[in-house]
């Protein structure tokens, strides 16, 4: 049984309409070819192509990653299928002036969660119903209340270990990293034209996949996403080495939530925690 069973048809109609009325040059959505194990991105230019579009509980990808791409922007205004979690990434892109609201047409889907079994992030989803979209498809889903302590359980599990066990754990995990940068490339918010890892004067982060290079890379990645990451979990899904990257991002989300009462991506207007400050911020731990 799928929580997202009947959306496909209404989604196709909505996409066909915006394409035939030439409101957009392209619709980015999910499709599924024979034999594919999950739904993958499709780029539709004509209304006739909408039969390729699907929405089911294997639509993992966060399609917002394609919005800043020059080859997509060339096609004209971009229509994009967004789940609630994806919308949060779009909000950050808007907030950071990477894209303009008038250049995108948001086709929101009311998503009951993806994955078989359902991903942990979906069981604590607070945005089943994506607000502020141009078109919304799917039936209303009852929004359950999510308590603060439910949000950061993955990070919590690691926090609960003693420090030396944590280091032992991360040494083992980070040693696996092969530096394919799939985590960076799949992230909608890693849109820098040139990543710090690719800057060599000076070479801040060593590119060799040894532990110190991998630690530097993962620390840098986590910090550059602090207060920005929306917790879509794509980095962890695509990691070919199964490194629990989501837990690192969750930890930093928890830090900004607890310290600054900030949660990323719920609005396109808010100020990010590191672009602003409060004179009342904690002084704890400063000599």
């Amino acid at each position, binding site marked *: 049984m799928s929580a997202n069973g009947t959306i496909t048809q209404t989604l196709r109609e909505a996409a066909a309409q915006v394409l035939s009325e030439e409101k957009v040059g392209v619709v980015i959505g999910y499709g599924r070819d024979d034999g594919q194990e999950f739904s993958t991105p499709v780029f539709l230019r004509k209304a006739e192509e909408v039969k390729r579009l699907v929405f089911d509980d294997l639509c993992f990808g966060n399609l917002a990653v394609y919005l800043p791409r020059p080859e997509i922007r060339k096609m004209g205004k971009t229509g994009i299928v967004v789940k609630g979690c994806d919308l949060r990434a779009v909000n950050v892109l808007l907030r950071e002036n990477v894209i303009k609201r008038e250049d995108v047409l948001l086709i929101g889907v009311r998503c009951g969660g993806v994955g078989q079994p359902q991903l942990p992030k979906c069981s604590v989803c607070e945005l089943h119903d994506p607000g502020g979209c141009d078109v919304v498809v799917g039936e209303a889903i009852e929004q359950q209340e999510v308590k603060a302590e439910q949000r950061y359980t993955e990070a919590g599990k690691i926090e609960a270990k003693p420090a030396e066990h944590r280091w032992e754990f991360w040494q083992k995990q980070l040693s696996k990293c092969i530096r394919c940068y799939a985590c960076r490339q799949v992230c909608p918010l890693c849109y820098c034209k040139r990543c710090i890892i690719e800057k060599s004067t000076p070479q801040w982060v060593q590119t060799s*996949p040894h532990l110190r290079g991998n630690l530097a890379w993962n620390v840098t990645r986590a910090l550059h996403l602090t207060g920005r990451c929306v917790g879509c979990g794509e980095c962890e899904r695509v990691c070919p080495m199964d490194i629990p990257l989501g837990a690192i991002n969750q*930890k930093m989300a928890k830090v900004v939530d607890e*310290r600054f009462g900030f949660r990323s991506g719920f609005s396109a207007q808010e100020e990010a925690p*590191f672009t602003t400050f409060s004179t009342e911020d904690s002084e704890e731990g400063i000599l």
Partner: protein
Amino acid sequence: MSEEKQNQSEKSQWQPRIVAFLCNWCSYAGADLAGMSRRGYPAAIKVIRVPCSGKVDPMFVLKSFERGADMVLVSGCHPGDCHYTSGNYHARRKLLAFRELLDFFGIDQRRFKISWVSAAEGAKWSSLVKEITAEAQALGPFKTFATMLQGEPS
């Protein structure tokens, strides 16, 4: 000298290496004042002058550890006194979050210090350096990074 003896004398002579990033306007001037007032402080600390504590990217800290620092200190103007109005407020957010991340990885956060020292606080600078040098001495060499430096990928 026999190896054992050498090891012993190395231990007693071992001096931590502390890298300190000091803002140009307050902490650097504070350290300067300590010197001019002839207030001594341990030479284990290596000072790097930066325009503002807000300039300190956590990469600076990580790089220092990678290159063998046993402790890193970032010091700036007291809140409200930043030469650029708000650099230290930004530093405060960024660096404290960074410290939590280090802790999450299980890296000893006592190795990373943050302080506010004004241009008038030569005495504070002197006692601060004495205090953290003693702590670094007690903690011993920072093995986490030292072993990584030797470590080869499998």
